[in-house]
């Protein structure tokens, strides 16, 4: 495993995001995260750390999402559903 805990910068300080009132990211089946997924890679490959593990399930901070498009493909169990945020919402570079 890489050592990804050695910095404390927060790049979201200089990202503009217009968050929608509802999430555009979903875990399809929480059971898979508990029973099958050992490393929980979504908690580290996401460039803005949208995902974190707490109380036996993946929590999603969709308001941090900058729409890179990696999460549905990076999940080894195809367990993340990601949709485009509604028109006008989300990241604005």
């Amino acid at each position, binding site marked *: *495993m*890489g*050592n*990804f*805990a*050695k*910095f404390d*910068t927060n*790049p*979201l300080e*200089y*990202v503009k995001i*217009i968050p929608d009132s509802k999430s555009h990211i979903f875990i399809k089946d929480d059971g898979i995260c508990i029973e099958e997924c050992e*490393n929980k*890679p979504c908690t*580290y*490959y996401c*460039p*803005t*750390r949208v995902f974190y593990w707490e109380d036996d399930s993946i929590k999603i901070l969709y308001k941090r999402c*900058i*729409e*890179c*498009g*990696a999460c549905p*493909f*990076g999940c*080894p169990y195809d367990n993340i559903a990601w*949709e*485009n*945020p*509604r*028109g*006008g919402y*989300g*990241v*604005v*570079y």
Partner: protein
Amino acid sequence: MGNDRYDVVVVGAGPAGSSAALLMANNNLSVAMLERGPYPGSKNMSGGTIASMPFQEILPEYWNIDGIPLERKIVSDELWMLDNDSAVKMGFSGKKFGYAPYNKFSILRYKFDKWYADQAVAAGAKLFNNCLAIDLVYHKTGLLSKKVDGVVLEGGDIIHADLVVLAEGSSAALTQKIGLRQRLNPADMTLYVKEVLELPSGKIEERFSLEGDEGAVIGMVGYPTSPAIGKGGIWTNKDSLSIVVGAYLNQIVNKGLNPLQLMERFKSHPMIKKLIEGAKPIKYLAHTIPKGGFKKIPTLVDDGVIVVGDAAEMISGRRGIDLAMITGKFAAEAAAQACALDDYSRETLSSYVKRIKGSFFYENMRKGKNVEEYFNTYQDSDFLITKAMNDLAFKYFKQDLENNKIRLRKMIEELKNMQPLQKTGKDLLYGLQNWEVW
């Protein structure tokens, strides 16, 4: 906007979509262009250059057009093989690239894409911002036959059109939804993060040995993404630097890498630190690049549908924006023909596929298909080559007390200790193709 009718609706207002819309409008087709963000470019990211020759196919002498947000003309292009505290540098700097027709320009997508879409609008295309298409609509023509009749927007409005051009970028939701693109694996894409760092133009010119509006690009392999296969890079803009790092997604996942940590680590390299010293971060961006290559090219046309740009996996080496532009141009030509025939069937539109198959980049993509496979099999090749080159260069340039024969023998010995010489040669050969220095 609901229930309006156009000849063509273009989904996505990036370089592919705007090229298609601009040229179709020039051909007197009625065009609607949909952008899901507040303005074109608001969701887009790339390393940072456009190539002059392909862009001139669409807008001749574009550099003279009023208000074009070009950052710097690139006169220096380098590849660094970066080790922990050293680098082997290759490259070309040429004043020739500083004169028209130039070679490439650095750009910032949130400025450039907006301007480019405005050119399509000036030509007559209609641009709808904040507008997400969620599906295609069909019109029944018989018991079993149907024909594309436009797109549905979230909220249910419909924009009618005879032809839908899918220019929706790497995530390609609609292309997948209608079954033209197969599901991609994490090995079929790279994930990049980028920062834009503000730095006064005088400092940029001083640090990169530039004059006036000249610019430099440095691509880097080895250290930036170690232990994964990937690339780092620095682009000079007018008064900022773009710094980028990224790697194959499957390797990021399997090796437990965090892209933001890769960026921080890259920026702290002694030779990078000096270049960006005092520069203030003003943007943080991230995006995937479809790298499935030749094998993952989707079905490019269907009845009433054409797929262009990243959605069509049109990436070859580090070329993507220019391929997006050219595929947009091909789509516009096919659309003009279809409109003249009043026939938007797959058969008529397949002239688009023929144009792609006859293009220079199709041949490059076909040839490049083994490169990606190679790097997924030998994930240590970047590391080995970078290490070998840095060790050799160190010995070569070091003033020691041995005669040249012994020096050479020792250098070869060292290479052999790492891996068989043939494999080193092969790594280098594939590496050169992957880094696109030729």
